[in-house]
């Protein structure tokens, strides 16, 4: 499942400056693992030591916050777009 992923500015040092990358994954959890395989170090930024997505990281599948979907188990399909966005913003 080719899924396009938007990478926020604070993580682009790890993606060689790329703001948009494509990975194959079936859900958000495997997507994070695939990102790690392609861009080592990225998972440690997104997840804490126990593998949980950090509280200050928001992940969206097709514009919806995965906390309103199935969290890390949220499925992703061919052509879906995923955004990783720092939670600290606004207000």
């Amino acid at each position, binding site marked *: 499942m080719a899924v396009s992923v938007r990478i926020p500015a*604070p993580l682009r040092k790890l993606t060689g400056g790329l703001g948009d990358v494509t990975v194959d994954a079936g859900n958000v959890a495997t997507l994070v693992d695939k990102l790690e395989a392609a861009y080592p170090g990225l998972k440690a930024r997104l997840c804490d030591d126990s593998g949980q997505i950090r509280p*200050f990281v928001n992940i969206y599948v097709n514009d919806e916050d995965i906390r309103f979907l199935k969290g890390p188990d949220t499925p992703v399909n061919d052509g879906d777009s995923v955004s990783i966005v*720092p*939670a600290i*913003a*606004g207000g």
Partner: protein
Amino acid sequence: MKAKIKGLKCRECGSDYKAEAVHVCEFCFGPLEVDYDYEAIGKRLSRKSIQAGPPSLWRYADLLPIDGEPTVGLNVGMTPLVHAKNLGRKLGLNHLYVKNDTVNHPTLSFKDRVVSVAISRAREFGYQTVACASTGNLANSVSAHAAEAGLGCYVFIPADLEAGKVLGNLIYNPTVLSVKGNYDDVNRLCSEIASEYPWAFVNINVRPYYAEGSKTLAFETAEQLGWRAPDHVVVPMASGSLYTKIKKGLAEFTRLGIIDNHPTRMHGAQATGCSPIAMAFEEGRNFVRPVKPDTIAKSLAIGNPADGFYALKTAAESDGRMGHVSDPEIVEGIKLLAECEGIFAETAGGVTIGTLKKLAAAGTFHKDDVVVAYITGNGLKTQEAVRDHVGKPVEISANLAGFEEKFKLEDKGRTLQERAAG
């Protein structure tokens, strides 16, 4: 102006950053905060030095994160601290005060504080364009200050905003982007745009500086109370940033010896239809579950509050309470403040007053406690919320008979003296 900013520091992991336009830690995504040189500031800051400053929030410039002199919003702040005797009598409080930012200059909300700081800082960085994600008041203030500063301006607002807040942007002629979605959608969109465009998003990449402007509400309160911290504050919460920064302002004044150490109980107020922080407090959680907002208090309608975690921490540390009120209670709160004190607040003010009332009824305050309620925006901007809940004008023809057709008052024919005599 002497150096006062050492840099930025991650509030979570302590990583240090240069004082640039960055807002989150590269390592843990935690929020970056301004790291001040308090030792140097303490050597020159005193009550006297503050009083010698301008009658605006810039009298506290030593504790605001700009390197040089402010260049925009020079008249912001120093709004009245009103002793609310009538409302206090109703609630059983002898020392109830209303910090009245409905009359802040120039756009009638507390957002003028954060924006004057953010845009002064953005100009120091060299930005030519400013932007924001807003529930309304912030966009108004960014639009006005961008006009004053002659900067390009893009403001992003949810499509369902009140008419007064939309017009309150357009009059300054910025580019207004009306986004199909709620504030959280707008905020996410702006976070992504901020990664791509060389703009100063005041509440995204410039957020560490912007948020510091809210401390001035605490500084002014302490000074206006005669250099002391209140016993209680009641603060409306959207992202929770204002609430945490009022605490920070009081802590800084205490640390620097401007006021004596005095515990202030920090109480937070939300609308029931968007109460992720208050709900977490009620359920004893230390984390916030995002919600989809549904309330007339659109200025507080942030379902995914950035500072929710820190707001919960602040409440716990200060023995504060958090309350929430329904839409009818918000309207009632707006009317109560207007009828008692002659102050017309927007919906967020209704949330504050409604929550204040509930806290008073629950016995949170002693009758002689100094309680400060923060009224952060002006009711003329959210007329939709109260339009159907106020009386109507009495229509009469333009002659005495027309008047007396509707009113036959016993005062007729009496002099003022006779009336006073009964």
